[in-house]
């Protein structure tokens, strides 16, 4: 998308590296210390949604594809992980993998359909497919309908670490988040990521250069779906439940909002966006309907005046200052 283009002008690789390094350090320290300052359960939830937003950002920020149906990957991952842990009695790491694998497979099928159109159509198609997934979850027996899957056991990590300890659970989630985050960072800066960006900027030119753009787009879509599924699976274990809200279209909208607010196409933006939005839902819970209204207002104002998002604006300001 247009506004995610980085400002023109020569880039200083050394500065970029320092900037990324510093941001990463801040993030690691902040999340590393988080459970000492806030409610660990809440901090874990933040990490799950931050991962979800990062997965989403991989698609929109670097592939230029706006999916309005990412809740289906998040929710399906969540349901399958919960079901695997609770009913099949799988150990926690396998349950999470099951959830992520389910979303990956779902991502392949929906991706094959959705990438046949671009732009707005892509958004509408993903939204419609996600609605179908929602109806499926509503009616399927294993999801428990409105009751959801409750009391999902956390169990022991690798049979050793008791995850019912909030701190153990927190650092487990943090480790998974960090690994996934670094993976995304790596993907974005790999040749694959460069091709994706090229497709985003000008697809016909990428085709003329001999790239089979459909394959790249599908790969990005599936990767994004898999990571969203991973986030959903983690959340099922963290919250110890999986419910219909995770697959509902409003969740797809929320992840778009997180990414937009934080900064599409920036590495750290989605994390910041997720923290702000989830904190808003949690700390402003006594405001009732105002939460939705505030989210809507943020959407409108971001699109009109702050398309770079929080992190994008900060980055732009830092770069300007250096000139």
């Amino acid at each position, binding site marked *: 998308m247009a506004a995610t283009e980085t400002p023109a002008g020569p880039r200083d690789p050394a500065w970029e590296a320092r900037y990324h390094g510093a941001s990463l350090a801040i993030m690691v320290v902040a999340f590393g210390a988080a459970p000492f300052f806030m*409610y660990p*359960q*809440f901090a874990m*939830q933040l990490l799950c949604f931050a991962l979800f937003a990062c997965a989403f950002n991989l698609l929109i920020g670097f592939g230029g594809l706006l999916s309005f149906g990412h809740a289906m990957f998040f929710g399906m991952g969540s349901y399958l992980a919960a079901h695997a842990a609770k009913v099949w009695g799988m150990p926690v790491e396998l349950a999470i993998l099951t959830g992520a694998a389910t979303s990956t497979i779902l991502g392949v099928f929906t991706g094959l359909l959705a990438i046949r159109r671009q732009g707005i159509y892509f958004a509408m198609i993903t939204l419609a497919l996600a609605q179908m997934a929602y*109806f499926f979850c*509503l*009616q399927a*027996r294993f999801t*428990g*309908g*409105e*009751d*959801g899957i*409750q*009391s999902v056991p956390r169990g022991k990590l690798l049979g050793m670490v008791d995850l019912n300890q909030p701190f153990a659970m927190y650092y487990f989630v943090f480790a998974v988040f960090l690994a996934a985050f670094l993976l995304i960072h790596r993907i974005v800066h790999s040749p694959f990521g460069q091709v994706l960006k090229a497709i985003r900027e000008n697809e016909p030119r990428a085709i003329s250069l001999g790239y089979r753009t459909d394959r790249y787009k599908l790969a990005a879509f599936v990767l994004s779906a898999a990571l969203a599924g991973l986030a959903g699976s983690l*959340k099922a274990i963290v*919250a*110890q*439940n999986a*419910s*219909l*809200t995770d697959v509902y279209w409003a969740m797809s909208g929320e992840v778009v909002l997180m990414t937009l607010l934080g900064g599409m196409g920036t590495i750290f933006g989605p994390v910041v966006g997720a923290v702000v939005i989830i904190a808003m*839902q*949690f700390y402003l*819970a*006594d*405001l*009732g*309907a105002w*939460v*939705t209204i505030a989210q809507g207002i943020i959407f409108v104002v971001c699109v009109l005046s702050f398309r770079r998002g929080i992190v994008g604006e900060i980055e732009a300001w830092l770069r300007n200052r250096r000139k």
Partner: protein
Amino acid sequence: MNFKLKTLAAAAAMAFAAAGAQAQISGNVVKIGVLNDQSSLYADLGGLGSVIAAKMAIEDFKAKEKGLNVEVVTADHQNKADVGSQIASKWIDAEGVDVIVDVPNSGVALAVNQVVRDKGKVFINSGAASSDLTGAKCSPNTVHWTYDTWMLANGTGSAIVKRGGDTWFFLTADYAFGQALERDTEAVVLKSGGKVLGKVRVPINTQDFSSFLLQAQASKAKIVGLANAGGDTINSIKQASEFGIVKGGQNLAGLLVFLTDVHGLGLEKAQGLILTNTFYWDLNDKTRAWSKRFGAANGGKMPTMVQAGVYAGVLHYLKAVAALKSDDGAKVVAKMKEMPTDDALFGKGSIRADGRTIHPAYLVEVKKPSESKGPYDYYKVLATIPADQAFRPLADGGCEFVKK
């Protein structure tokens, strides 16, 4: 003089009571958390009205005079199980909340049920329909007031068959909740000697019910049972009136209908609908007096049974806390079960070992516009289902700590 002495004595007694209470009541306050949906689907039937109801209970209990320091906190769970369980944990861990009330939406309620049990506090549910709260997922820390799916199905089914509505056609929302309602109702209809002539499973969030209503009409069943909720119920009733189902001699039975739904439909559309409620504002002088106060505080909106249940639940909870002089979760719930319930809204009743509150239920019919004397004059009571028959028998619930 005499008077002055009395007040002095009372004040002294109160001071002692307060001192006594301080010793055992955590943080010196009893904190009530009203956790419900304040912005979405269930906001009307609970929402801020439930907060008003909780505050009225504190007022009527005369907490201050009895030396109990009671506070109310409130939050919107946004119908998200994770948000709900997090708020519950935060309330209990960081803010010293002793009891969580209301919590509509079965998914959220079951999640909160678990949290409250793990942390040893009290959960008084009024808003959720799931009968699992006192069955498979029952907890020694949970009390379920007002209604549940079993009671709705059973009450409506048996009472209607008794009144001659012995042939049924079901319009069922095609998901767990709708299917459970249909299954339970069908069982009781058959048991009472009725017949089920047909059923159709309708996807949830269907806008247009006409095809299904035509089938219901063609079945010639006396009763069309609506095993759905919320917007689906409203749409099906609205369109049934359009197709002249009630005028054609069939009756609609709503298996989960709240006063707010009838209000939203208007009598013209809803007339003739039969449903089960455990509370209606116009039952007797006591309910009328209470509801008038409630209405004045709630912008003229009359209370739903969920809001009434919040009031009664909080009142009974405070009585138990005062009697026990402690707000220890499991002990208070045990005390609540030991003491008979008695309030202006549900009358005398009791709380069973599985946490189910037992009180009578009422089969009501929605009035014709010509019969209604004003706003919220909606129901006429057809039959009273006695408390001992209204709810699922203790032994059938499968609650783990109920002795077989």
